[in-house]
């Protein structure tokens, strides 16, 4: 199969301006061969989903450190569903996700992968490659069965 480059949008929802982590992860994904767009600061959930759709990305990664990960993710998921892209775009959340309960809650809400502080680059890269591969195979199988 011809491997199309994985495309990722890294975004910071909300007003927090600490984006060292977002940039570091963006650079690590680039080094892993992915195409990465970083939106910059102060993005509303609407802007992030719109950019993800317009850029036709495989993955939308949210970086949150300010404690609003649940609320911000919820807004993003609601908008993705409204736009009908929740199943097309893989949603990841990284940053300060303080407790196991929060991780579980994010996943039950529909976040595909959660990467708290100290997660390794390899874990994030492997996870993305794996889910994108499975998603693409599934899409291919579906298009063949049509």
């Amino acid at each position, binding site marked *: 199969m011809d491997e199309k480059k994985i495309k990722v949008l890294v975004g910071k*929802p*909300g*007003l*927090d*301006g*600490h*984006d*060292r982590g977002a*940039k*570091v992860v*963006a*650079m*690590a994904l680039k080094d892993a061969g992915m195409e990465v767009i*970083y939106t*910059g*600061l*102060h993005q*509303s*959930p609407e802007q992030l989903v719109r950019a993800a759709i317009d850029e036709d990305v495989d993955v939308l990664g949210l970086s949150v450190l*300010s*404690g*609003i990960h*649940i*609320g*911000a993710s919820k*807004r993003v998921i609601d908008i993705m569903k409204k736009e009908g892209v929740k199943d097309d775009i893989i949603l990841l959340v990284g940053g*300060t*996700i*303080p*407790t*196991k*309960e*929060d*991780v*579980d809650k994010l996943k039950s809400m529909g976040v595909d*992968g*959660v*990467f*708290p*502080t*100290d*997660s*390794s*680059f390899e*874990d994030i890269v492997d*996870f993305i490659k794996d889910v994108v591969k499975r998603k693409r195979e599934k899409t291919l199988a579906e298009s063949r069965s049509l």
Partner: protein
Amino acid sequence: MTLEEWLDKVEKDKVRWTGECLNKKPVGPAFTESGMPVEVLYTPADLKTSNYFKDIGNPGEYPFTRGVYPSMYRGNIWSIRQYAGYSTAEESNRRYKFLLENGQTGLSVAFDLPTQLGLDSDDPSIIEEEVGRVGVALDSLQDMEMLFEDIPLDRITTSFTINAPTVVILAMYIAAGEKQGVPMQKLKGTLQNDILKEYLARGTYIFPPRPSLKLTTDVIEFCSRNVPKFNPISISGYHVREAGANAYQEVAYALSEAKTYVDEVLKRGLHVDEFAPRLSFIFSSGMDLFEEVAKHRACRRLWARIMRDEYNSRDPQSQRMRFFAGCNGTTLTAKEPLNNIIRTTIECLATILGGAQSCHVMSFDEAYAIPTEESARVALRTQQIIAFESGVTNSVDPLGGSYYVEFLTNKVEEKAREEMGWVEENGGMVACVEKGLIHNKIARQAYEKEKKIRSGEKVVVGLNKFVADDCCDTKGAGKGPEMNLHKADPEVYSRQVKRLKSIKRNRDNSLVKETLGNLEKAARKDIENLMPYVIDAVKAYATIGEITGVLREVYGTFKCPTGI
């Protein structure tokens, strides 16, 4: 034997010692945190070019290498000031009283992000959880009055971490003081008000750099003339360091910013000695103890030299750099969080051995959330133990004269000067911000450092060395340590919005409209100082969102380069 002959002898003896002793068991290279090579041994010969009177001097005298006051901590302990604030004004007021009762000597106000971006709590663009989350929510003068209820503003000093909407916060504090019967001439405290570093790191900018710089200058000018005991700006190296700069870049960018501000204020017709004594600074203290001490000393000396030689200041107070320093948050880990108490102790020590006037120690749980009462107390106690048990306060600048520390002090000054030259070559700080040049550099460095941590080349105990088996893994499973974390109050948003709505109903709305109209007219002029207009507006209970909204209309907003 002359001094020169003696130094020659010392140098020759080091060559002998290297051959006879050191090389019997060779060691690998070592580097400071910023990447400067470190020798195994330093001797008086490494300080051959240093002149005690010219380069080091006694504390309280030019070039202030050893400290800005003659007796330093023997005279007065540094100001122990823990950054705090959350939820609503009433909640934060309670936390402040708790900290003051526990021996804290000044307050340091943390605002929530909507406030820092000049938005009202009910602004439709914000995510509700932002309200009161990372600091206290503040919409109108009423919140400021409640924040300091029963705290006499003529007897405490207050530091405000506020940048883009500084004009509004200062105006509210002045108005709150008046209501307590304290005239602005008696208010003491510090405003962050350093907008240029917000574009490089931290990110709470609203307007483009040039009008932002105008607002910063308005505050400095207004305070110089009317609020003489306030430090109208705290020029920061801290945040750019957190974003990835190294120790000497931290110095270079902060001092390049400082020069930009000084240049702007001079254009308002003030003499340098009329405002420079009240400029203050913020730096970070990282884990490389000696490089950090050297950095603080070098920075003080470099600023003194710049103020005397480049700006012709005559008042020694304009040349002495007073600074606050906090711990380097990026050195703290989420894994084994109690280890952070030891890290912050070392960083606090670097701050104090570096001669700071004020210090903040981070709480060990800050990789997870804002501090609990317990973790905030441990952080406060860390400072108090260093201050009252360790004996480091007894003699001024105890590391002065250490061959290694003096050598590093010279090196940091030299490297910082080079980096400042690079900023100048690229058109100065504003141009560097607009072009994203520094963003680019520091983001790359942050990534390289992270790769070194991930590969184990840079040791972080408990994270990549001596890793405990029982520590939960990091494969996205969530670590959830057994610790009490600060729990955000889910009702903050509704309480704050309710109060905001009530203020808007009960104030004189025609007066609000009039004062905002006057502000807009003033903002459209190039040089009119906006402070008096903002004071009128806050006294009419115009909200921070309304006031900033007028300025957004006039100045526009800004999309900052990301650097990657």
